[in-house]
Every structure is written in C-alpha cells, then in structure tokens.
C-alpha cells in the first residue's frame, strides 16, 4: 500500500483571527430562508411531486422489502425441480419421492423443509434429508452443499461425478470444482451459474429454459 498526498501543512497557518469568535448565533439569518426551504416545506414539495408521478406501476416483480438468503435459496431449489430431468433408473416406484440431500447443517434445512411442505412435482412428494457421507449423497436427487463444507467438496463431487445427482452449491470453490448449479450474489440479489459439462456427465438433463435464466452457463463447445 502506498500513497502520497499534499495536505494542509500543520505549520504556519496564520489565522489573523485572534478576534475570531464572532457574535454567537448568527442572529437574523433565519429570516433569509422561506418556509419552502425548511425541511417541512421540502417534504410537502416532495409529496406533491410524488403524487403527480404516480399512476402507472404495472409489471411483475417480487413483493416484500427484503429477505434472508436461505428462504430465497430454498425457493430457487424447489423451482429447479421443474426444469431438471433425471434418468428413469433413479426412481424405483412411480410415485417415489424426490430426495433433497443437505450437506452441512444450518438454516437452509429448515428453509427447504418449509419450501417443499405440501408441494409436489409431477405427482411426487419432496423430502429433505441431512447427508453425512458420499454414499448417503448418492441416494439424493438434488444435493445442496452449504458454503461451510468446502473442505469435503472434492471428495463429495468426485464420488458423485457419475451418479445422476444434481449438485447445488453456494461457494466459489463449489463452482470451480465442477458443481452443477452454483448460487452467486450479485447486486444484492441471488443469481445462479450452471456447469453443463458436469450435468451431462452425470446424466442429469437441465432444460434450455433454466439455462436461459442462468447468469452464466459453462460448457465445453
């Protein structure tokens, strides 16, 4: 770190102001400002302008002032199921539930449970399960890996490389090491990146529609 600057020299600023202290209060100045220049006047002007500006406010967008990260990510994950297809071999029964595995405990598990409660995808229920080993992870259809679990990423992703499990993560290491869908925070909003190479290797079909919504799609041409 290096910086150079020219600044007030402490030396010698001769303030010819031995008598610097003037009459306190600066009386009589208030009269110079009219009502419209007071804070209250300002707000009235503003209120009038706002009212005149109002009128056309259509178009879609999400409600609410803001959210915590985990419920929003959980809602994304629920939505991903609508755009992804697994090989038929991943379902033993016609109505077998879709399994969401979670690596790393934290608020995401509760958020996922709330998001998928009483919801179905193609007639299948969704179940959330905590996952501790690569073997357990293989049973899941979608595996979420929390950012706190970067240390075991390598082992996990290698074990799942050909297992038809859609991996979803949130750390840079996850994206780098070949995770399929990775959340990124951009401009205070959640976006996601898709690694199509990893998804194809695992035999998980990611629809073109989802790819279109991703902020980047990684694919070897």
């Amino acid at each position: 770190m290096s910086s150079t600057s020219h600044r007030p020299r402490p030396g010698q600023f001769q303030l010819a102001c031995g008598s610097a202290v003037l009459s306190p209060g600066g009386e009589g100045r208030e009269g110079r400002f009219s009502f419209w220049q007071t804070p209250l006047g300002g707000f009235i002007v503003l209120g009038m302008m706002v009212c005149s500006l109002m009128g056309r406010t259509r178009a879609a967008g999400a409600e609410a002032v803001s959210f915590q990260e985990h419920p929003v990510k959980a809602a994304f994950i629920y939505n991903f199921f609508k755009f992804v297809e697994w090989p038929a071999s991943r379902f033993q029964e016609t109505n077998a539930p879709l399994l969401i595995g979670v690596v790393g405990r934290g608020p995401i598990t509760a958020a996922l449970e709330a998001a998928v409660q009483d919801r179905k995808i193609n007639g299948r229920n969704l179940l959330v399960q905590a996952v501790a080993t690569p073997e357990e992870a293989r049973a899941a259809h979608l595996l979420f890996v929390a950012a706190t679990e970067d240390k075991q990423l390598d082992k996990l992703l290698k074990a799942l490389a050909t297992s038809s499990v859609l991996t979803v993560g949130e750390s840079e290491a996850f994206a780098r090491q070949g995770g399929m869908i990775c959340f990124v925070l951009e401009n205070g909003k959640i976006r996601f990146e898709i690694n199509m190479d990893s998804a194809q290797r695992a035999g998980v079909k990611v629809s073109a529609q989802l790819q279109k919504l991703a902020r980047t799609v990684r694919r070897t041409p």
Partner: protein
Amino acid sequence: MRSILKGMRGLVLASLVLAATITRAQETRPPPNPATNLADLSLEQLMEIPVDTVYSASKHKESRSAAPSLVSIVTAQDIQQYGYRTLGDILNSVRGFYVTGDRNYSFLGVRGFNRPDDYGGRTLLMVDGHRLNEALFDTTSYGHDFILDVDLIDRVEVVRGPGAVLYGNNAFFSVVNVIPKRGRDYHWGEVSVGGGNYDSYQGRFTVGKQFTNGLEILFSGTYFDTKGEKRIHYVSADPANPLPNGGVAENLDYERSRSFFSQLRYGDFTLTGAYASREKATSAAPYLTTGLVFNDPTAQTIDEPSYLDVVNYDWSRSEAVDGEVQVGKTLWDRHVLTAGAEYRELFHNRYQNEDLNPAVIYTSINPRQRTWGVFANAEAQLYRTNLTLHAGVRYDGFSEFDSALSPRAALIVRPWNPTTFKVLYGQAYRTPNVYEAAFNSVPGNAGGASPGPETIRTVELGWEQELGKHFRTTVSAYRNEITDLIDTELLGGAPHLVNRGQVESRGVEFEIEGRAKSRLRGRVSYALQETWDTATDKTLSNSPRHLAKFNLSVPLYQDKVFAGLEVQCESAVRSVYDTRINSFWLMNATLFSQKIVRGLEFTASVQNLFDQPYAFPGSLAHRQAELPQLGRSLWFKLTYRF
C-alpha cells in the same frame, strides 16, 4: 423543542407519502393471498428479490438482522437509479450519515460527529476488505479522489458503531466496506461518457471477463475533469479582516482526477491493483500562509506522487505492508468462533514541510511504526435462533503508544419471525496519525505535548421490524462516550491539537423502507442527535441536530425507465468560529433508462434541483466560517456494454 416537533411532523408526513404511494401501487392488483410464500414465485421473480447479506459486521456472511450492528446496504441499483456520482453521494443517503466538504476534500459525518480536519480517521473505509485509511493523515476519500469509479461498485456495506474488535485502529464510529464488481459481471467491455454543467466531463473504459477456466480479469480506467464554479464568493469570519479580492475566488474550483482499477482472480487467488490521482484547486484557500494566498491561481492540492509548485510546499509519502491471518470454526453446528491476528509495518512515512527558495526545511519526520493485534470473537446461539450472543475482544500493540483492549458484546433477540431486537456494546480506540502527532511541534503552531489516543464506548438499542409484506422499519437509540477526543483549538491565536476530556453524544434514529411488486421502492429516515463537550456543555461544531432523508424510485416503464427522487435535510450547525450555519434541504432527481436499446443505458440527473443556497462549515485553517456549496448541477451519462 419546536424544531423537534417540526422535524417529527416532516417525518410523519414523508412516511405517509411513502406508505400511500406504495399502498396505492398495490391496489391495482388483487389482494395478496396470505398463504403465498416464496416457493410460489417463479425463478424470474425470485431473481428480483433483494437479500440482505452482510459480510463486514462479523467477517463472515450473515443476514442483516443477524449482524451484531445496525447495517445499511447501498447497491449498484441504488447508484444507478438515484444517479450517485461519488462515494460521498452514496454515504449521504444513509441514515444518520452526513457528508460535508470544504470545496476540496469531503468529510464524513457519522451520528453528529464531523470534526474539522478529520480526513477520515474515525471511519474505517475498505475496498473488498482492504484498508484504505493511510497512516499519515488517516485519509479516506469520498469525492472524485476515491480510488474506485462508483459505477464499478456492486454494493456498499455500512456497519454502524465501533468495529475495533475485528478491525483495530480507525474502526471508531463505523466501518464502510465497498465491494467492487468483478470480471464476471462484464461480457467484455463497457464504455461510459458523461458531461454536465460547470464544464464537467467524465469518461470510463472497462474490460472485464470470466474465462471458461474460471480466470476473471477486470481493468478499468476513469478520467474526470471539471472547471467548477467560475466565481465563488466567500465571507471572512472576521469583518475587521476581510478577504482580498472582495472574497471572490475566480476560476479556482477546477478538478481533474484519474483512477485505475485492475483485478485478476483465479481460484482462491486474487490480485488487485488500484491507483487514483487528483488535482484540485483550493478556492477556499485553507492553510493561509505567506506561500498560499487567497485567490492564488497556483493554489491546488495534489493527491498523488507529485509536487506543488509554490514557494512553500509540503509533501508526504506513506508506504505500509500488512499481513493478516484469520481462522473460523463452527462448533456443534451452532456456535461460531473467529480468531485472527494482524501485523502492520509502516516503513516509509515521511512528512515534510519546507521552503524551496531559499531552502529551509521546517519539519521533516519519518517515523517507522509497527502495530500488531490479535482478536477472538464468539457467536453463541443460546436458544435456537431466537437468542444469539456475540462476544469478542481485541488486543492491539503499537510501537509508539500504549497497547489497547477493545471489547464488544451483542445480544440479538428474535422473539418471533419478523422482529429483531439488538442490544449492542462496543469499544474502540484511535491513535493519533503521523500528522496529528507532529502537529503541535511544527513552527508556527502553539507547541506543547502531542495528543494521545482517543477511546469511544457505545451502547445501542436497536429494533428491526418487518411490517406486512411491503415495509420494514428500523428504530435505534444510542449513546457514545468519547474520552480524549483529538481536536483542534486556538491557543493564543495559534492552532493546537488537544485531547478533549469527555465528549458525549446520544441520539435516536428511525427508518422505514418500502417496496412494492411493481418495482416501486423508497426509504425515509430521520435522525435526531446531540453531541456535547461535557467540560463546557456546549454542542460540538458541525453537528446537526436533525437529519432527514427521503428516497423514492418510481418505475415509469416496465424495468426500463425509472425516476429516482432524493431529498436530504440537515438542520443548522455551529461553525468553528461560533457562528450559525443555516439548515437546508436539497432535492436530487434522476431519470435512468436501460434495455431500450440493447446494451445501452442513459442517465440524466440533477443535484440540488432547486438551486438552494447552502454552506458547510470550514475548519480553523479557513478564515471563512462557512463555505458555500455548489448550486444546481446537471449530469448526463451514456453507457454502452458490448
């Protein structure tokens, strides 16, 4: 009391306006189904939801309501829609903050404290966690001398209260962390040109890209040039001793700045280089010496390796290296332990004041300083996520000063979902910088011992509440006690730096934020604050009692055209010469459009729409008590992405 009532009336009115506009925007749609929750939204809608994640309050990601501080976040969207042009504009929109300027540097006021000659030592300013306050003057820059073009900012996190437990020196009143955009945010290039009145121009060229192997690059350069106001009329604080040239500074408001930012990222490796330089004419003529006279066309300050071509000149150079390690550990899934150590060595730290002809060196110092610190912080979930305790302490050692201990504790209570209460205690200290330590011994100043470190203790109560779907409020009350505040005073006509015994402040802040489905959003905040020196019982200078802010962004056409409106009110303050500087309100308006032509963005904005006269106080280095500020300022900008 009357003025408080008046302020409250304005606030209530503004809140009502905000509530009415947002509620009205809702009325055009069917009433929302209470069972609706996030999972019913489409991916497109989910991508529009702002999430409150903050890093700087605990040095790891957490939600805003879980942070052991009251945090404000300004995003790139705010910067676009409200037409912010400097970091000062961004921080001025934040509750309880007020940025002032002396027509040269900008100064950040936080909760009633904005001391003259404080170049930024009491707020830690970081870019992506990298400390910007240097060791000589503690300088941070909020104007065009800031190291980053504001268009490269992704978000700004403002963490209120002492942050010394994690950051050490300078994290006194608040911590501001600016998070820049990254290579991945660009598809290759972006070019932006802007222009406005006062002969102002700005150009930026940015290249950014993320390659398929993950490598990210970002290079960006910005040039800014303005002639400024042609004639600025100043009035001497002492009528018996008027300013020369009738107090008019002619053609002395020009400013030129360049900044360059580059970043390479690959895996866990990040290399960032940043550089900025600026020349600014000093119309207000501070540092009035035999060398620098009022209305002197050669008078300017240069913030860069360069020199000032006048008879008397002073220069400084500061180089430092620092190293930091940090470990985090999660215990039993619920408790987080963070510990770290930091070492800083200031190996070149020269400050020199001299006459060139005949050559006389008045002051030359080059202290070699070392600081080191260790800290530990624990977050414990006492009762599920409803009750969390943060406790931390930091120990710092200095080669030149006594060591210091800074504790912090926070209790965060979430009795039910949309309600959070926070009880916060924090302590911080600041050591005098090289300039402050040398100040008294410089010939011409009053002499005497150098000032010692200052300490702050803050207690704060906060309440964050979501109201229905569309509103969120924040209420807080705080008390600061500052011991040994480093401050300037006049001693027999000569300036002198002292440690003031005890200075206190207390205040309440209120904010309401609203957001409607239609992308209409807004914010109203009000801060009432008092600061006083306990020895004299007198309010400090440059400390407004009321601060009110109003922001509204109205979508005029889909997500393509927005009108941004901003109003800022500041009540009267006292100058260093004990005169009163009047209250003022300013309105800024911005029209922002995007996506109408592919890749093209257009911004038209007006700052100080009604051309209101307003002034900020100067320091004891100025002969004028108040420095009038810029009138109506127009700005047009065209940005093209390819």
